[in-house]
């Protein structure tokens, strides 16, 4: 392997591993002896230093690790403070409405209503602190039951769940009638 290729390989290895990697392991991977390997890596360290790079290689007691340069610290602090875009997608809204109206409710029950696996949606709502675990159901497997958070109530300016708008009973009746009519249709055939 020519030297450029060896350096690229070391870069890829250190990147993937993230942690400190013993020089022996690197040497074995690139097929050189330990001394040559150390020399190559130390040479790379100089290159990373002289070129204006955001990352560097550091040596730690016979091991090497890739990390960012110290003067990058401010920028990294900055980016971690820039919030990710969060949006309540239709999927999340639907799941949230089910939890709000049917709580306390298990994931399985949510899935039965939605007709599809809902782990992702429930996890996101928990992450957004709109929904939380409120306990365990006294049933086989003791499934987690979910409810809305105080934050949820607060952000809608309501005191308690009793203040949620109620489902219009007439409307439910309409749905039922529709369903019954459809059943009737089938029977007539």
């Amino acid at each position: 392997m020519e030297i450029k290729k060896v350096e690229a390989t070391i870069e890829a290895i250190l990147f993937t591993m993230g942690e400190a990697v013993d020089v022996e392991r690197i040497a074995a991977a690139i097929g050189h002896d330990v001394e040559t390997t150390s020399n190559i890596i130390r040479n790379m360290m100089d290159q990373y230093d002289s070129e204006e790079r955001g990352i560097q290689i550091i040596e730690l007691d016979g091991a090497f690790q890739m990390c960012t340069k110290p003067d990058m610290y401010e920028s990294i602090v900055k980016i971690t403070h820039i919030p990710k875009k969060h949006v309540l997608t239709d999927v999340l809204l639907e799941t949230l409405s089910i939890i709000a109206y049917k709580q306390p409710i298990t994931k399985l029950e949510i899935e039965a209503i939605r007709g599809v696996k809902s782990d992702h949606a429930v996890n996101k709502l928990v992450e957004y602190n709109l929904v939380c675990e409120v306990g365990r159901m006294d049933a086989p497997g003791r499934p987690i039951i979910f409810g809305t958070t105080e934050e949820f109530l607060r952000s809608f300016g309501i005191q308690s769940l009793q203040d949620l708008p109620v489902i219009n009973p007439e409307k439910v009746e309409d749905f039922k009638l529709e369903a019954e009519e459809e059943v009737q249709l089938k029977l007539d055939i």
Partner: protein
Amino acid sequence: MSISIKLEAFEGPLDLLLHLIDKNKVNIYDIPIVEITNQYMEYINSMDDKDLDMMSEFLVMAATLLNIKSKMLLPKDETKDEEEDPRQELVERLLEYKMFKYISEELKDKELDAAKVFFKEPTIPEEIEGYKEEVDIDSLLADLTLAKLHKIFESVVKKQTDKIDPIRSKFGKIEREEINLTAKLMSIQAYGLQHKKFSFRKLLETQPTKMEVIVTFLGVLELMKIGQVMIEQNNLFDDITITFIGETIAELDDSVALE
């Protein structure tokens, strides 16, 4: 013609059809319907009939082929100027399917290449991660009102009552017996034996699809007829209370129930 390949090897009716076309060395655009239909039927007859679900899909396709075949045997309608070739739709479906089979091979190659790169776990220093901004609920819920949330829930409730029947609506006239009435009769009785008195509405609400609601409804009617349950309703549109009056679970089969 002898059939050497197991049917399970095919993903579905289109897959089998493609195979037959390929085996006969004919082009998709020129399917000899009669020949293919015969071979297709031969396959279906050799099918292990344990999997009714799968069988029905193949039968729908066989029916489509027979339909095309019969249309081709009928004399042309002179009153119509241009009559579409009855094979046209099938050819289009097959071509589309073939196209996706081809694409999935391309994707497979891409995946092999893409699998060769490695990513790194985030290594945000702990002291920074502590700063991690919480999700701003207010901006997240900015567009959402209680009324809207309420509407969404209503549509969820509605959706449950009128779930449309999957697949079948796309396939002409042949319908599959998706829900087993006998099994439904047994499960209603088992439920009744355990609960004695229960709500008809609740019973329907637990049914995941419209088809199940219908079959459950039929099941209750049948159980009334044979005197396993008694029902009462106080006012029009009130919930109906079902009382299980049978001693044990009655053994029933479809033929009894469908009379």
